[in-house]
């Protein structure tokens, strides 16, 4: 089972994507401000969409 977290909050995703980038596009989150972790490891958005485990999307804040 796949669990997706965006900024720490769980989001139910029922669709299958080819890459994590496709999910970001659908969520209207630019790759330029999104750090992606799959099962705790940093991963490029261009990587294939995992079938199970945990995806975390961390949005980079402006300023600082």
């Amino acid at each position, binding site marked *: 089972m796949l669990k997706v977290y965006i900024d720490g909050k769980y989001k139910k995703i029922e669709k299958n994507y*080819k*890459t994590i980038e496709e999910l970001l596009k659908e969520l209207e989150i*630019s*790759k*330029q*401000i*999104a*750090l992606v972790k799959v099962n705790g*490891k*940093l*991963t*490029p958005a*261009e*990587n*294939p969409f995992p079938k199970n485990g945990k995806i975390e999307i*961390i949005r*980079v*804040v*402006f*300023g*600082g």
Partner: protein
Amino acid sequence: MDRIKCLECSEQAAIIAHNRTKPYCTEHFVQYFEKKVFQTIREYKMIRKGEHVAVGLSGGKDSSVTLYLLKKLQERLPFKLSAIILDEGIKGYRDEAYKKAKELCKKLKIKLYYFSFLKEYKITIDNVSKVSKKFGPCSYCGVLRRELLDKAAKKIKADKIATGHNLDDIAQTIILNVIRNEPKRLLRISPNSELGIQSNKEKKFIVRIWPLAKMPEIEVATYALIKNLSMHFQDCPYAFEAMRQKVREMLNLLEDSYPGTKVRIFKFLENLKLILELEDKKTEIKKCKKCGRPAALDLCAKCKLLSYL
């Protein structure tokens, strides 16, 4: 479809850096990032032996990474390093950031100096946002922060101020100056203010350096996450009011479709300065009629803004 591998080893890539052309694992990304920042510092002659550099520390990722890397640089180049934090008076935002800044300075054993808008100007940005009709809170924040950072650096006898301005910030500033028809301001943009057009040769303002000038924001964030630096992961509540946020969104959309857009904007300005071959025309620096500090016009930007409140 296979997972992307690191360019330098057989490990899985953590990030695709350099305009999304170079995949790196965490270890090789850190090497790439640090090398590029140190190269930028050298290229723009940012720090000399024996100087005192104060980092404008907000507790956010950019200034935290700047401080961390300058601390690392001290291993190769002897100079003094301090940190300055400014409290603009934004409730629920700066208090948390200050905690993070203190943690980081304690960890790196760097002296942290605290200055506040309330003590220096008798205002807070929270108050300004309620009373100001002509200018938004970001206008006040930007101008007063610059002036107070200058004042603070002089007080602690720093030779230079290092801030966390990254490639995204610079590309946004270039576009903002074009939109606002501010060509003189545009030409002053430089990773080392000592070297810019209308440079600071008279030393009336403290020299400012941007060690992260060539690093995209996403790479700075990645480095901060990998290094587990104390970071403040919260947007300023006023950030979305500024035109800058719109420009940021536009540039990110363009960068998604056309990787390298931000680098090309930065290089455009560097090349423009070369092509124009403008002489370093010194703007006559006067004294503000109200507070006596250096100013280009009769009133400095700070006194002019405060007069509207």
